[in-house]
């Protein structure tokens, strides 16, 4: 195993930034965000995950899909060049690493491949950073995620007092280490630190089966009362993938874009004629929880929650998915 001194992390990022665009959590207006590394910036690789999940790097908040020109009655369309930018995503925690597998299921399987997602995903190397301290809202271990070692990544890092340990997992990870060989030394005595132990838990065993019988249950009315129907929980969730498609016109040309959308919004399901299959927050909140804990497992065989705790942390009313799991398992049918 190799190691690098914490003082040299900026140099490491600079090396990687020569062959790729590097994204790493940095301080931004009092929050921690994955931002492009431009040689300087305040890294936030210490305790706690970035406020926003890295999903934005594969599935941006807003992205142009194609441009068009309309001169009635003619129209033409211009597709965008393939996204070939090489990227290195540094400092991904185990929970977010699992979320990539979930997003892959959505965007890359079931008959259709989402090209925008695929291109970004394939051109990105992922460097994980193990957690040694859990935040109060973390509960990744409830989903069998190991905060000390991420799944499906190219390179794993562990924090020590003044250095990081590094281990390549894939050829891409090995390549990253080779690029930085001059900065790395052999770790002789250092041991991989103990993984974080989240104190919050959710016993999700059997919750899907219970939910399958609960669609009409009065529980949803009660639990949704405090929800204010914002999109904070879904936008900050690393596995929420809903999007809208709209166009923006300027004169006779314009572009079609897609942007994040949220099942918590009234406009989401409202049909052109006004019909609204999910008229109130009860139906919307129910959909969000069922999507994570029932529908996704039914469709893809895994939960669409990784226990990152962002929803609980930032919800204006502290909606707590671990409590929902607990209560769902307790309520009588």
């Amino acid at each position, binding site marked *: 195993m190799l190691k690098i001194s914490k003082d040299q992390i900026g140099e490491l990022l600079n090396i990687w930034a020569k062959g790729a665009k590097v994204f790493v959590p940095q301080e931004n207006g009092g929050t921690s965000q994955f931002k492009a590394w431009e040689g300087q910036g305040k890294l936030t690789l210490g305790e706690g995950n970035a406020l926003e999940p890295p999903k934005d790097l594969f599935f941006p908040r807003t992205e142009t899909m194609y441009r068009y020109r*309309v001169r009635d*009655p003619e129209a033409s*369309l211009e597709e965008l060049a393939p996204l070939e930018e090489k990227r290195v995503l540094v400092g991904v925690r185990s929970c977010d690493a699992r979320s990539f597998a979930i997003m892959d299921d959505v*965007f890359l399987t079931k008959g259709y491949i989402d*090209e925008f997602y695929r291109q970004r995903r394939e051109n990105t190397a992922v460097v994980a950073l193990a957690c040694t301290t859990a935040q109060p809202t973390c509960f990744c271990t409830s989903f069998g995620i190991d905060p000390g070692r991420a799944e499906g990544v190219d390179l794993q890092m562990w924090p020590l007092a003044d250095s990081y340990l590094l281990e390549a997992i894939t050829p891409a990870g090995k390549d990253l280490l080779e690029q930085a060989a001059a900065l790395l030394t052999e770790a002789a005595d250092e041991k991989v630190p103990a993984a974080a132990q989240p104190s919050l838990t959710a016993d999700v065993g059997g919750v899907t089966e219970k939910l399958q019988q609960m*669609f009409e249950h009065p529980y949803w009315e009660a639990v949704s009362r405090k929800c204010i129907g914002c999109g904070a929980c879904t936008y900050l969730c690393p596995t929420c993938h809903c999007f809208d498609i709209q166009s923006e016109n300027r004169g006779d040309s314009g572009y079609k874009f*897609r942007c994040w959308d949220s099942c918590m919004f009234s406009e989401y399901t409202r*049909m052109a004629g006004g019909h609204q299959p999910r008229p109130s927050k009860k139906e919307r909140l129910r959909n969000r929880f*069922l999507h994570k804990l029932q529908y996704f497992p039914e469709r893809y065989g895994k939960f669409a929650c990784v226990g990152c705790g962002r929803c609980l942390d930032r919800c204006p009313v502290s909606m707590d998915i671990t409590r929902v799991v607990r209560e769902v398992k307790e309520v009588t049918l």
Partner: protein
Amino acid sequence: MANAEQVNPLVPQIGKIIKIVEETPDIKTFHVTTDKGKPFTPMPGQLAMFSLLDVGEAMFSITSQGPEHLELAIKKVGMLTDALHEVEVGQAVGIRGPYGNGFPLEMMKGKDLLFIGGGIGLAPVRSLINYTIEHREDYGRLWIIYGARSPADLCFKDDLFKNWPKVKDCRVDVTVDKGDADWKGHEGFVPAFVEKLGPKPEGMVAITCGPPIMIKFVLQSLEKLGFKDEQIVTTLEMRMKCGIGKCGRCNLGSAYVCLDGPVFTLAQLKQMPDEY
């Protein structure tokens, strides 16, 4: 089911409107083709994402097709459809698809088919009617029961009154909620009309589509007549954006209507959350 020519399923082809048929005061049928001919070849009941590039995109059922074109019957209900009703022949449009499962043709083979449509709801059903007429020998008797608010609101009048009645073993019954001075046909709502006509469920599959409220009552009527849930097929409408099961919004439980639907048997629907 992805279309081989199209690399990116979210990017449309540019098409052109070559004919517009005014069906009713608020429904028009648009015939669409592209420079390369028919945009794609859908199966009956499948959908197309249709757009005016600078206005918007929405999902419509494909009501019929020819060797070189697709037909979409569209009712004025909102911004995009209002704009569509203003365009003229020659207008460039975006089109992508085909999406969705389409009707269960195998399951219907050899059966008598009862088509029940209300208003614009005849549009998706018509793709199947025309298909079964083309493959006449594969299906039993065809029976079409259709209703609209008024005589002026009846869609596809040529088919209803000229083409379909001429087909061998094909029966057409039409009703309107309220007739006018010239109306000689039946008056009354579709569900009651169905009960009055009393089709026998043996060896028959019922296909119904229309406004949600009509469907609800038609289903009750069919159950009364002894149809089993497996014998009843309907197609759903939901707000859709991607059409390929990714954007999330058309879900009914763990199914996506754009991908796993829009056609479901009543037996399937009863397994899903009542959220449409």
